[in-house]
């Protein structure tokens, strides 16, 4: 039985117990001899919750666990010479077995591989039946247990509320589980990567040339050595971010100042939502725009004044990324500027300063920590941005500080390595996880830093 139909059956069982339990207490009440502790439907909810929740949880765990268990069980089929495989060859062997399971014929597999595949098919069948029996059984028994406990004195409301409390509490741990999932998945693969490539080489290496093992270096006729030095990627990321911030910070900041201090309500009411639109446009659209419109424009402009511009220049990607970040900078700065109390402005005006003098000498200094934090958050956004650089910045890992060159970034390398079919065990694939680790460390570090700045330097005016 499929997972969804099983879940449906469990829900139907739950509904049945709801009806039974509620009817039971209603009958008791109608005799007039009993006073119920709780409202009748709480008895129903209690029975339904005990019938449904553990069963669904079990269903989820069992369906996830069965594949993992099979992978361990299938080891018994390996011939003696393949008993102690490293993870690389194990993945290859598993892939062979899975081909048999899916009925894909790829040459003639070894007899033991076919046997393992057939056993696997057997197991899936058995486990499916087993899971169905267990889940339905748990649901029925749980419901029965709850139903037996129903009596007028039973404090069903308290019991239901306790269950709800647990459900709510468990839901809130999903955020923690996600973080753990992210950290562990990235960390484990990174550690395996650092076993193949020493961390110092990765962090300080000046050439990025990832290749699958044994691949021939293009055109040279010799087997190339893959090199994993992340410096060019980070320089590229930084270069594009710098271009982006040169656009976004002045434009965003001046727009925020104008909207907060100069514009009347009508202008604000029109311009603010328009700027928000820039934030709502999907990044893939920006990427398309960068590759289609901005890159040729930049190239044309550069060539008309005699500069050589790469067709996928850092400039084009950076400019468009800057446009994307403008609303981010402007709305954060706007909040900060509006938080500066009116009394400071009034005092400056009272001393005879003009509006621009007030802004420059009073408001901006007062708002500076917030603005710096906004800029740092914008940097972290720019570093983590993916689609624009994938579509517009190219893949050439040049170590260059010239924004007119083609560079590549951390995120675009991650995407390039992991999109499509990958050998999960090669250093090249693992390198993507190591890059992701660096990306997480840097973005979270920047966010932490921004938070600290706000905490430390914020003026409390009240």
């Amino acid at each position: 039985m499929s997972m969804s139909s099983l879940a449906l059956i469990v829900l139907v069982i739950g509904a049945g117990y709801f009806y039974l339990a509620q009817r039971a207490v209603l009958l008791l009440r109608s005799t007039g001899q009993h006073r119920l502790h709780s409202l009748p439907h709480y008895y129903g909810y209690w029975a339904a919750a005990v019938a449904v929740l553990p069963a669904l949880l079990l269903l989820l765990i069992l369906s996830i666990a069965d594949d993992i268990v099979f992978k361990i069980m299938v080891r018994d089929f390996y011939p003696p010479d393949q008993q102690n495989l490293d993870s690389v060859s194990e993945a290859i062997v598993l892939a062979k077995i899975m081909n048999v399971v899916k009925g894909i014929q790829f040459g003639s597999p070894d007899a033991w591989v076919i046997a393992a595949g057939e056993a696997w098919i057997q197991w899936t069948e058995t486990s499916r039946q087993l899971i169905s029996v267990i889940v339905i059984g748990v649901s029925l028994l749980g419901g029965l247990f709850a139903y037996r406990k129903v009596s007028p004195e039973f404090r069903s409301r308290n019991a239901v509320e306790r269950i709800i409390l647990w459900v709510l509490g468990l839901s809130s741990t999903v955020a923690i589980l996600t973080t753990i999932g992210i950290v562990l998945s990235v960390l484990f693969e990174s550690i395996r990567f650092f076993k193949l490539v020493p961390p110092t080489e990765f962090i300080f290496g000046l050439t990025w040339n990832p290749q699958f093992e044994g691949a021939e270096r293009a055109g040279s006729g010799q087997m190339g050595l893959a090199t994993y030095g992340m410096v060019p990627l980070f320089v590229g990321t930084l270069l594009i971010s710098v271009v982006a911030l040169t656009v976004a910070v002045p434009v965003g900041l001046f727009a925020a100042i104008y909207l907060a201090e100069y514009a009347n309500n009508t202008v604000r009411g029109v311009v603010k939502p328009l700027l928000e639109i820039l934030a709502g446009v999907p990044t893939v659209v920006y990427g398309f725009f960068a590759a289609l419109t901005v890159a040729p424009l930049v190239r044309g402009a550069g060539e008309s004044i005699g500069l050589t511009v790469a067709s996928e220049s850092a400039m084009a990607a950076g400019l468009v990324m800057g446009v994307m970040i403008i609303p981010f900078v402007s709305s954060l700065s706007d909040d900060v500027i509006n938080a500066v109390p009116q009394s400071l402005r009034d005092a400056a005006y009272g001393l005879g300063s003009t509006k621009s003098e007030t802004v420059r000498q009073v408001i901006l200094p007062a708002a500076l920590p917030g603005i710096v934090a906004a800029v740092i958050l914008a940097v972290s956004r720019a570093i983590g941005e993916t689609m624009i650089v994938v579509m517009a910045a190219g893949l050439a890992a040049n170590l260059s500080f010239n924004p007119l060159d083609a560079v590549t970034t951390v995120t675009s390398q991650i995407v390039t390595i992991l999109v499509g079919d990958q050998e999960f065990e090669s250093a090249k694939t693992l390198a993507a996880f190591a890059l992701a680790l660096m990306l997480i460390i840097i973005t979270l570090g920047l966010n932490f830093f921004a938070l600290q700045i706000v905490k430390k330097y914020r003026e409390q005016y009240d």
Partner: protein
Amino acid sequence: MTNLTAGALSPKEAIDRVAATLRRRRSAEFRFRFWGQAAIGLALGFLVLLFGAIFSNGIPGLFQHYVVLDVELNKQRLDPQGDMSVNSLYAGDAEALIREGLLAALDNPTGRSNTRAARGIISSGSAQRLVDFVYANPDLMGQTVPVKFALDDDIDSFLRGFIDRNTPEADRRINDTVIQFVDKLMASERVSYEVSDYLFFGSASRDAEMAGIRGAFIGSILTLFICVLISFPLGVATAVYLEEIAPKNRFTEIIEININNLAAVPSVVFGIMGLAVFIVLFGMPRSIPLVGGIVLALMTLPTIIISSRAAIRSVPPSIRDAALGVGASKMQTIFHHVIPLAMPGMLTGTIIGMAQALGETAPLLMIGMVAFIVDVPGGVMDPGTVLPVQIFMWADFAERMFVQKTSAAIIVLLAFLIVMNASAIWLRKKLERRW
């Protein structure tokens, strides 16, 4: 200014001194104001350029050229088994019938190069189209009826003026014979320019004239469905727990820090987590909307939690006190009063989170939703793709017509987003109460 008497100016001196600087200060004021206006002008200019580029390519991309041919719906040749089944129709010779209709429209040119040129004029999906047409209109069998076919994408771009007939024949994608034929079709008014049905009802294809977004659109809806199914209950439950129930202790502090950190993690990292956890560890299939939806749900969870918490916080304490005062339990207060009153705010946050998820591409690339899939996904376990990923894939195709197709798909995506955001704004205006 410590010594007022020594440095003091007479009122006249003071006025003169201020007056001397006034010109400079006024022009500084004017410049500052100008920079503000320039910044806003620049930002809006970018917006106009962005939408201009998308719409100028995308509006024509919503249309394409069709040709109407008189096709003899010969029963024997179209339906060799005679039972009108799909199998029989596909075994039939629809292609030859279309070719005959086309040649007739071109006054029956002879010679192999001529027939080959003629064959290239209409889309390679025309036979399929005729089969579908016959299947839908079985009563027309045996008659000669006008049927509309798409023109090949090269002809389409020629008719749009992207291929210049004055360039030497060797440099053109279409030769003189073809141009001559197309002119003949134009002269006989068989060619029409209308809203592209392939764009909206076609599926992924490498031929620009047949490529459509139907599969991606349905994939997007399935993915969003899973996403909202997971993230809305989880987000609301977390928000309720943190705002109403949880004691302020170490544990809840960790949860809060976690949520803020998750909001800052780049989206591509969620994709990596999805790949490592759901696909490699849990053994779920690649490219399916289920995994995509789960990954996007985890990604949008912080947005929904943060906005739901704000909505719960905006419910005044007097409501809770009143409910508790008439004897409601804590949970009854929450479920009967706080959540219903905070619901508009929670829904608004959820819609905004969904809009974010709808436009997201990078995490879905990681879990393989980038595969070339022709079938329309029938459920959350079928491999599929989504609109932004379809846009990403089309953006990679070199043909001129795909630029327009991509822009047209972007227009559809933006329209989808605008509807979602507008409904969020409407919901907020309509239902939100100020206390």
